[in-house]
């Protein structure tokens, strides 16, 4: 099929989408063309800081595309038969594409997609990164176990950690399997993100603050008040 037609179809589908502007539009469009995405968007969600679009699942291989855009970047997540390919386009980076291919089943990961889905459901939440290979982060998980906070705390596992050890710990502490979702996020984060535990404070789809290190429950409570 001639490229022109694709472009036409695509821009139709993007402009026909209810979202007013897509950051790095031409780079994102090119990518979509290459992915053969011409099907209309199924679902969308618009909030002040971000918008998301979801494509129809199509084909035998269960191929779907999902897009989140904020004023600083657009993230495109392609799910092809369970493998997630995440592309991020940041304005600050001249819209150059950064790609990340996820290891493992989507359901075992915490991806950019999960981040924005979380943001859609909760205007405020905290992501708590932990690792089975960082003793102090286990103390953090234990100490927060039966505590209630004003906003949801989402526990996400270090992508490098030993899953075996993590499973053992979760079992021993009688914590849900959701704690085992591994961090799989493409895009902009502080260079020193990888210290465990770390807390990310999210408000309206934006990471407001990144705070590494152990926090007593009372300290975390104050940090939530302060940052969200």
């Amino acid at each position, binding site marked *: 099929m001639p490229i022109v037609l694709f472009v036409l179809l695509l821009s139709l589908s993007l402009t026909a989408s209810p979202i007013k502007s897509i950051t790095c539009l031409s780079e994102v469009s*090119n*990518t979509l063309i*290459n*992915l*053969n995405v011409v099907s209309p968007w199924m679902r969308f969600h618009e909030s002040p800081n971000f918008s998301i679009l979801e494509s129809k699942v199509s084909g035998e*291989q269960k191929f779907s595309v999902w897009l989140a855009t904020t004023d600083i970047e657009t993230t495109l997540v392609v799910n*092809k*038969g369970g*493998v997630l*390919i995440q592309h991020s386009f*940041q304005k*600050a*980076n*001249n819209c*150059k*594409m*950064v*790609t*990340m*291919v*996820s*290891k493992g089943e989507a359901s075992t990961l915490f991806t950019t997609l999960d981040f924005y889905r979380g943001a859609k459901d909760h205007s405020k939440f905290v992501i708590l990164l932990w*690792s089975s*290979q*960082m*003793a*102090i982060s286990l*103390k953090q998980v234990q100490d927060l176990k039966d505590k209630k906070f004003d906003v949801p705390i989402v526990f996400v596992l270090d*992508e*490098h950690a*030993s899953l075996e*050890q993590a499973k053992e710990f979760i079992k021993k502490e009688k914590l849900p399997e959701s704690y085992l979702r591994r961090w*799989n996020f*493409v*895009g*902009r*984060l*502080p*260079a*020193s*993100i*990888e*210290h*465990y535990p770390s807390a990310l404070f999210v408000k309206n789809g934006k990471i407001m*603050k*990144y*705070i*590494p*290190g*152990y*926090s*007593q429950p*009372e*300290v975390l409570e*104050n940090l939530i008040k302060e940052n969200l």
Partner: protein
Amino acid sequence: MKLILPVLILSSSLWAQSPNYCEVKGQKPNKVIKIDKSPDYFFKASADGKKIYYISARSNYVLDTESLSEGNMPGIADPVPSPDGKLFSYLEPGWKLFLGVMENNKDISSVYTDNETRPYQSIGQSNDKYRLFSQLGTENYIRWSYSDYTIVDGKIEVVKRSTDVPKSAHLRLPMLDKSGKYLIAQNSNTNRSEVISVETGAVIDTLPVGGGKSDFSFDGKKIAFHLTVNPSYDVKKNEEEFASIMRQEGVIRNIFVYDRPSKKLKQVTNFTSGSAFFPVFLKNGQIVYLYKTPEGSYEFHIVNEPGDSLRSKVVVENCLGVEVTDSAMSVLINKWLETCNNWTGQADRTMAELAVLNLPKAYCLSLGKTANVSKQIMEKFCDPKIKTIEPANKTNNEKVLSKTILNNKCVTCHNDIPFHDEKKLGKWKNKIDARINSRDPSFRMPRGDSLSALEKETLSKYIRQF
């Protein structure tokens, strides 16, 4: 195959061979020690590098880096030796902090504890006084305190108990220096690391990046840490290779050193797969870090600290002025990010700046040309001259003195080193510099002899110019 194809087309723009100024070279490890266990991301080494203390699955271990034999250490986490190896601290269940007298870098006796929950401990030392710093785990605010101890007749005695460190509320991941006088921590407001005085809480130094948990060198002048770099995919023409890249994990960590006197940030490793993290200094200036291979196994690496980076931003600013430097830097960074595939992402502008500052002169000029920065500016940018010009005869004297030292104190044992071939000496300068300035007598040169402070300084300066 279908999966790979579309992405492959997309990345075709990355296929072009990266220009030579994109190359960032990392140090090759001198020693690689493979380990079977999955270690925690926290370990320490004895000052001489012969022992590594690490945690795996809630137990502490000691690894002999020469015989590769392993033994148990007490505690479930955070095994920390004092700089002289005579005191050892560790955590027991309940995160209670314990201290023991250590012999032979592994045998613990005379255990002491005040039964407090105190994670994040580190030990500094001044003469026979040991300073143990930790975060109190039971308060409802983050409280840092230190206690001083000494060892009398093989027993631990308290000299000064639990003194608070006055600090700003935004500091995280504290680590004491070897003298016990300073701490490094990350300021969560600025995402930068700060060196603060333990006694006054005053900020002494601010780093250009946030290094997270960091380690001081024995002389306190250098700080090592890891940073995360988002790789982009430097895709070669080969589909198979691309498939293997796709299997890689998304995040790569590399080791960096900040040199406090010159304010230079230096890159130590440049892994493009796997991850290098949590570096620890040895007394001789070498660095030990943990490496996770792309296959998921673990290794400890021992590496030399790299030679000085080529130019410091402070010196460039001194030469060109802050404004011109900033605008040139910004253009160069953009060009570098645009044309080089190795680094991407906002957080990595710092890396790009570092890479630009470390380019050899010719590559630096070539980047400037590509980025359309004026030649006059680039000449100064790439080869900044410090404004205080040294008198010619002084330099000459230095050369004469240096050659004399080499002749009298080095040549006898070394026909392997081209001391008198200035062209070849460049390759040796880091090694020579490390040897003559080492504090470790078994590593230090000249063997069986010594250099005065002046001789050391002169020779060091002479050697570094190559």
